[in-house]
């Protein structure tokens, strides 16, 4: 059981027995007023979205999902292919159902594939993944523009902001919950 105070981006809850994922979360509290938890959520089966505002004290059931550890194999058209590590069964997941997770998929990455009523409806990637920078502009020494970050493209094609000292070919750690740079992998 979750309470409104547990709501955050990425949380999966059950509404009318269907799984929803919180895609946007905002805490609001008008002056001297009550705490309000504003959410946008997506139905993980149909993809339809809705806005809901909750008050403190309201409770939620976790979404009833089974997760199976699988390995990412390849992408084909707009589908991603995974293999169950135990049964070697292969499954496909649509690009839309992948959500942000597609930004972090490299060959052989282990993920949790979420199953609802025998159907794969999404994946959970680890909180931190290491990806190699394939393109970023060099840091101009003596740059006085005051810029504290620059864009970089990693091997999956995902583009994010990194500190100026990061160079092409370096391995960086990304926090998949925020999509942001976390640290440089020394090595």
């Amino acid at each position: 059981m979750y309470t409104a105070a547990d709501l955050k981006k990425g949380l999966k809850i059950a509404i009318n027995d269907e799984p929803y994922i919180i895609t946007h979360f905002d805490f609001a509290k008008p002056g001297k007023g009550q705490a309000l938890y504003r959410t946008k959520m997506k139905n993980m089966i149909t993809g339809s979205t809705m806005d809901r505002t909750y008050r403190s004290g309201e409770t939620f059931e976790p979404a009833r999902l089974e997760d199976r550890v699988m390995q990412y194999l390849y992408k084909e058209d707009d589908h991603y292919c995974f293999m169950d590590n135990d049964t070697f069964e292969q499954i496909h997941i649509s690009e839309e159902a992948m959500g942000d997770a597609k930004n972090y998929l490299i060959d052989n990455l282990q993920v949790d594939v979420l199953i609802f009523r025998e159907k794969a409806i999404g994946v959970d990637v680890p909180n931190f993944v290491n990806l190699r920078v394939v393109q970023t502009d060099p840091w101009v020494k003596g740059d006085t523009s005051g810029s504290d970050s620059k864009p970089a493209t990693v091997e999956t094609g995902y583009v994010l902001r990194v500190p100026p000292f990061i160079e092409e070919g370096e391995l960086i750690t990304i926090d998949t919950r925020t999509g942001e740079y976390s640290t440089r992998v020394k090595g």
Partner: protein
Amino acid sequence: MGSWPLARRRQALVERGAIFGRIREFFQEKGYLEVETPFRIPAPAPEAQIDAIPASGWFLQTSPELCMKRMLAAGYQRIFQICRCWRDGERGVRHLSEFTMLEWYRSKADYLVLMEETEALVQHAAATGSISYRGQQIALSGKWERITVADAFLRYGGISMWQALADGTFDVIMVDRIEPNLGLARPTFIYDYPASCSALARLKPSDPTVAERFELYIGGLEIANAFSELIDPVEQRARFVTAAAERAAQGKAAYPMPEKFLSALDEMPEAAGIALGVDRLVMVLLDAETIDEVVAFTTEEL
């Protein structure tokens, strides 16, 4: 985590420091005394929706209000303080559980005087006549917008303030329909709140169904809350008892009655006071999307 999140905030923290400097300069020029009162207190003001964090049998302050009003009662006529406050369970893109508050109190003044003074303070702190916040151009110079809570409900909420209170939808409508419309082209003072939403404010003599309380909004963001102070100890005690009952009904912790504050009210002059969220002010002046961008450390980074 690495030190990058902290290092990249350098520019914001430098500007934050400059804003603090200009705030202090403003109050010194106006003859205000900068004061400090204890962070750890035995009895926070009982308010229905504000929760204090316990600290060794006492509490971390949710606001320096009660101690600063005791100073007013003791004859300090113009005082200000910049300090940390704590509110349990408040965290979001505009909230930190530990945040920085600017409060100032002025005797022989009411909330209308404070509106004028708040305009002047923000203009001085900003050091510019116009800002851009989240793509919105906001004029700080010139006259700011003033709208009553009742008018705002009719104009933006499509419902009367009293009906919303009766329905229990006052806060939801305020957040969903009204706040996004406040302080867009210029800052907005929204004023005259229902008496039941104002535990420490004086009722308006010409209309005692509302309290002489206002909030300042800039770019849809709530920046400050102010009121003409309630100085009647009997009525103040009754309001605290009501708020304590609301807390009990919600299953919230009970606080001791702030007796020293209540007895000081006997000697308190007519006065007005205001609490301004400094982190929020820095957010709008620096066009920051989240409060995290304008502080050195968030709770999660400790």
